[in-house]
Each structure stands twice: as structure tokens, then as C-alpha cells.
């Protein structure tokens, strides 16, 4: 049975059993969401006004940055057309909520309240506002289980944002430590470097922040440098997560014109609230 599971023949059984478990999980997480809800309902008017003003401010800042972004995006598209290297894809995003349930000790897994009914699929990347969180490992009808990037069984291909150095970030089981193995002592990596997903392997979308390097120890007597990083995503505190559909999914087939020179302004600069454009190279698109 255990061996069978490694080949994933038992997903359907798991999904069926989870139908029974889901109400329990929902019941367990109910007091927590109720507390959230009550906290929102009972907050005072001034507090809401204050928060409102703050959010307005934030939105203005974001809008200002977005203006620049659309210009950059247009430029990027033009440059890519010059290179004739890749295509644009539209990513579709859905917000899911965490169910407050504890999983096996020593693993880092979470349950979210979206499942195959919302076209969630296995291996789907999971983000929050700050960065990559993990990926879906089990899909059930109304819920799914995700493995966080800090799980000891998880690895994500990353590159250093500053210079494009490629690496792999392994989970350690500790809530806020990632391990970056197999970097030689001469590798150009420093504390404070931002690691972003490299998109190699095709599972995670490119250029989302993953972690910040916290320690680099270069010991000449060891073959590799010891590099640790801290995930940028709020893995332990996020209540809402983002599910991302990238190009292979059946959800977005609207973007088929890859070869033609599409007029840059039409390239969806903020066309919908929940979609954004991002470029995703295939395996050839490694940074210099």
C-alpha cells in the first residue's frame, strides 16, 4: 500500500476519504474564522476609518508604481520581440483561504479551502503577497493539501536576483530556514541577496521572490559554502494564499498569438484585477 502510494495510484481513494474529513477540518477551523469575523465586526468606526485611509494611501503608492510597471512591461515586450525568444503568458490567480488545522508534526503542510471544484491541480504553485509559499500535493473535491517550501521534502529552483546565479532552495523543516546547498565557495552570493524563483523545471512561475539570504559561511576546508535563507512569504501567519495558473492549465487559452508582433499597449496592462502578465521562458531562458 505504501509503495503503491509512491506511484500516486491512490489519489482517488484519498480524495474520497477526504470528503468525510473535510467537514471535520471545517469544524476545527470554524472557531478561528469566527474569531476573525467577530474581530472585524466589532472593530470601531475610527479604527476602520484609519485603516481605510491607510489602505487608500497604500493604493496610491501602488498605482504610482504600477504606472512605471506598465511602461517597463511594454519595453520588456518590445525587447523580447527583438530577441524573438519567448512568449507572454497571462497568469490567472485565485485567492484561497487556509483551514486552521494542524498536520503531521515535522512536516510543513497546510490545507486550503479550494479543491478540484475550483480546478486546482497537483503541483500548482501557491503564493502569498510576499512571495512563493509552496505547491499543491493532494487535490480533494473541496480542499487541497499544500506543501510549504520549508518542508524537508521540498526543493525549489531559484536564482539570485542580483546576478542570476542559479541554485536550489531546500526546505529544512524549520519554519523560517531554507538551505541552499551545492554552491561552491567562490560563488557570488552575499547576505541580504534576494532569491527569486527561476522557473526552471516549469513548475513555479518565474521571478517571484522566494527567500532572502541570511547567512553565508565560506569555509575553505569544505567543498561547498553553507548558505541559509529566510522565506519572504509569511508562511506561518498568512490566512489567505494565492493560487496561480500558468500557461499549461486549461484556464487561460486567450493568449495564443506568440509569433505576431502584438501592439504593446494592448498587452493587458492591468486589464483585470486578478490577472497579471508575466513572462515565462522555457528551459532556454536562463539569465546571463
Amino acid at each position, binding site marked *: *500500500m*505504501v509503495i503503491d*502510494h*509512491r506511484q500516486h495510484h*491512490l489519489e482517488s*481513494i*484519498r480524495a474520497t*476519504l*477526504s470528503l*468525510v*474529513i473535510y467537514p*471535520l*477540518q471545517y*469544524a*476545527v*477551523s470554524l472557531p*478561528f474564522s469566527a474569531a476573525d469575523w467577530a474581530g472585524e465586526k466589532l472593530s470601531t468606526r475610527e479604527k476602520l476609518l484609519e485603516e481605510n485611509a491607510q489602505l487608500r494611501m497604500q493604493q496610491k503608492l501602488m498605482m504610482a508604481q504600477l504606472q512605471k510597471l506598465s511602461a517597463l512591461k511594454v519595453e520588456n515586450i518590445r525587447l523580447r520581440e527583438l530577441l524573438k525568444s519567448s512568449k507572454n503568458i497571462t497568469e490567472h490567480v485565485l485567492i484561497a483561504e487556509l483551514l*486552521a*488545522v*494542524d*498536520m*503531521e*508534526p*515535522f*512536516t510543513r*503542510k497546510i*490545507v486550503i479551502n479550494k479543491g478540484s471544484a475550483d480546478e486546482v491541480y497537483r503541483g500548482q504553485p501557491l503564493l502569498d503577497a510576499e512571495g512563493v509559499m509552496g505547491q499543491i*500535493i*493532494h487535490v480533494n473535491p473541496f480542499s487541497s*493539501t499544500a506543501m510549504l517550501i520549508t518542508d*524537508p*521534502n521540498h526543493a525549489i529552483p531559484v536564482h539570485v536576483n542580483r546576478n542570476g546565479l542559479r541554485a536550489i532552495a531546500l526546505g529544512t*523543516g524549520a519554519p523560517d530556514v531554507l538551505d541552499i546547498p551545492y554552491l561552491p565557495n567562490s560563488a557570488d552570493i552575499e547576505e541580504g541577496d534576494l532569491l527569486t524563483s527561476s522557473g526552471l523545471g516549469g513548475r513555479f512561475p518565474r521571478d517571484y521572490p522566494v527567500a532572502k539570504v541570511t547567512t553565508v559561511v565560506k569555509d575553505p576546508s569544505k567543498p561547498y559554502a553553507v548558505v541559509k535563507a529566510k522565506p519572504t512569504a509569511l508562511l506561518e501567519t498568512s490566512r489567505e494564499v494565492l493560487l496561480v495558473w500558468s500557461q499549461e492549465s486549461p484556464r487561460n487559452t486567450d493568449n495564443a498569438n506568440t509569433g505576431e508582433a502584438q501592439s504593446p499597449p494592448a498587452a493587458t496592462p492591468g486589464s483585470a484585477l486578478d490577472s497579471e502578465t508575466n513572462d515565462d521562458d522555457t528551459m532556454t531562458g536562463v539569465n546571463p
Partner: protein
Amino acid sequence: MIGAQRQGGFTIFLTFVVALVLTMLPLPDWGEAMRPEWVALVLIYWCIALPLRVGVFIGWIVGLFLDVASGALLGQNAIALAFVAYLAIKLHLRIRLFPLWQQAMSVLVLVALYQMITLWIKGMIGATTQGWSYWLHSVSSMMLWPVVFTLLRFLRRNYKVR
């Protein structure tokens, strides 16, 4: 011989549901490390009290649900709980006669065995675990056994589970 006397199946079912819920309840990190193996405790109790009704098969089924609930490998808890149920039934006559503290010691051994089996399976699939704190679950299960025992005995007598 058994026939007509069976009743209170719903109570048994409900205790397992509560055990599953307690297993899933979010706790802070220190609480997580101390969390007793509720499902194993309840299973051991019913195996000792009603060995003709609750046994290896029930243990296996409950273990499957535990696997799904905790996101573990399917079958990992199932096989461990089935084994625990088997041992508990084998020893039920002896354990029943023990005073409570001695029962708690046997429970420590049974739950530790349960943890050992899951640890083996986890080791085989390459999951790492953190040292000795892993066994705190067994110790806290032992500590809570008197409470669980009295509570479940009360339920069994009150609802005439036979």
C-alpha cells in the same frame, strides 16, 4: 452469543471523531510537541474494553482517516494503528486487571510502538524528524491515559456501550 447485545456503536464512532478533531486542532509549537496521540489512546481503550467490537479492522480504518486528515502517506497510520489494536487485544485481559498507573505504563509502550512504526515508515520515505522530542507524544499520551480512561469508562457505562 454476542448478537442481540451490541449497542452504542454511535458512541464509539463519536469518540473517534472527537479524537480526530483533537488531533487536528491547531496548537502553538510547544503544544504541538506535547500533543498526545488521541486516536491511538481511544483505540487502545476500546480494544481493551470491547475487544469483540473494536479491533484491528477498525484500527486500520481509523488510521486511514487519520492519514488523510494529517496529510501523511496513505496507510502509514493505518498499519501502525492496526498493529497497536492487535497488541491491545492480545493483552486486554492482562491490562484490564492492572491498576491505573500500570495501565498507563502499558499505554506508553503501545503508543511508543505506534510512533516507532510511523517513524520507520517516515524514515523509509526520507522524511527527517527532530531527535528526542518526537517521543514526547508518547509521554504525554501516558500522562493523559488516566483521564482518557475514566472519561471513556464513564461514557461506556452511561451509554451502555456493549
